[in-house]
């Protein structure tokens, strides 16, 4: 069993990895969006997510360095230690391996078509909003502050992505068909959002309320979009504890290339 400090660090890494990987995925649309304004929108969201992940990584790095100073080194062997001993936001993002990443599986899936990308964004943003609403009450003040700030941005992400779900779901036969395919592709990765792993248990998150509120909100949008929530789907888990789909390795290969090829290079 991990102590509280380790649990908080792992939880921060989970939040950081999740936002980093989704940011990386969305940024693949840069220059490829269906029209210029939407290209800008998805990359803006990507930037917001990157900013959030930086805040989480910075805070995690600070806590890791502090606990290292307290000689608690044994438990910290896998926090991205490269050359030199100081952990930074960069070493956490660039020097950890696939099995150390704790992002939700949903975020690492390929973008698919535009419908699949915006459906994922909507399902994730709605979840993130409700989760961060809980976390802004967290007794850890820095975690609460990061989430409070991010909520303002997430509000816009929900607004934008839910409009797209309506437009495509209740659009042409083809757009609707594509949304149905997207729902089918993504749904089995929703479950792990609401299943606590070890390091989450002391974070005071009410996952049952989170799941219910999320389902309620999504249902309203889906009904308006003439879509429906699938029932009794098999749910794939593993992302939070480092067991990923084959996709993450490819993402990290690209994301970490520079630091791996030229260690300690500076921009």
């Amino acid at each position, binding site marked *: 069993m991990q102590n509280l400090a380790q649990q908080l660090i792992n939880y921060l890494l989970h939040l950081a990895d999740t936002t980093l990987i989704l940011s990386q995925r969305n940024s693949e649309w840069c220059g490829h969006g269906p029209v210029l304004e939407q290209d800008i929108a998805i990359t803006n969201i990507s930037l*917001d997510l990157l900013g959030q992940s930086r805040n989480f990584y910075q805070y995690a790095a600070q806590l890791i360095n502090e606990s290292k100073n307290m000689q608690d080194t044994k438990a910290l062997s896998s926090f991205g230690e490269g050359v030199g001993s100081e952990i930074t936001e960069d070493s956490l993002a660039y020097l950890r391996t696939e099995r150390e990443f704790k992002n939700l599986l949903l975020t690492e899936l390929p973008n698919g078509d535009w419908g699949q990308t915006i459906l994922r964004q909507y399902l994730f943003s709605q979840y993130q909003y409700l989760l961060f609403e809980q976390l802004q009450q967290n007794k850890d003040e820095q975690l609460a502050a990061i989430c409070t700030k991010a909520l303002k941005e997430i509000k816009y992400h929900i607004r934008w992505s839910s409009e797209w779900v309506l437009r495509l779901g209740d659009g042409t036969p083809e757009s609707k068909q594509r949304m149905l395919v997207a729902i089918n592709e993504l749904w089995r990765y929703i479950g792990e959002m609401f299943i606590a792993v070890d390091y989450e248990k002391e974070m005071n998150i009410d996952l049952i309320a989170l799941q219910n509120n999320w389902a309620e909100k999504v249902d309203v949008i889906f009904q308006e979009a003439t879509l429906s929530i699938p029932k009794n789907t098999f749910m794939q888990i593993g992302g939070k504890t480092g067991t990923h789909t084959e996709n993450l390795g490819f993402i990290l290969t690209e994301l970490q290339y520079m630091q791996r090829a030229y260690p300690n290079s500076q921009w």
Partner: protein
Amino acid sequence: MVKALLDKEKIWQLLSTVADPEVPVLNILDLGIVRDVIVSSALEGLGEVVEVIITPTYTGCPAMDMISIDIKLKLLENGFKNFKITSVLSPAWTTDWMSEEGKRKLKEYGIAPPHSRADDTANPVIECPQCNSTNTKLISQFGSTACKALYQCQDCKEPFDYFKCH
């Protein structure tokens, strides 16, 4: 003590000359980024320590690193050596902290200023900064930078940025 007060005033004045790199008509005081300036006379003989406390606008705003460097340079140029810049997240920045002067300058520059948070709705009525018409249309929730949305005036046809309520 008197020197500390004078210096504090001078630093605020210097900060008012640091421009936002993305919206250069605004300085960082107009934006409400600077939360406090603390001048403390540290140990005797060592002079004073200056702390400038800033808060980021948007989480991912790439201008923040730039602003931090600009503040550093400005203080160094003016003979301050012993200082630090602290970034705080709480309370979270809001467009309500933007000064009236800042909002006026934004509009003159061609960017519609943010509504107050109390008046914010999902579909706010935005005035065209060129012809003041309220007959405007949202083109995209996201504009050229994280803080702006894209609108078009239906009367004078001019597209423009709206500084989003945040």
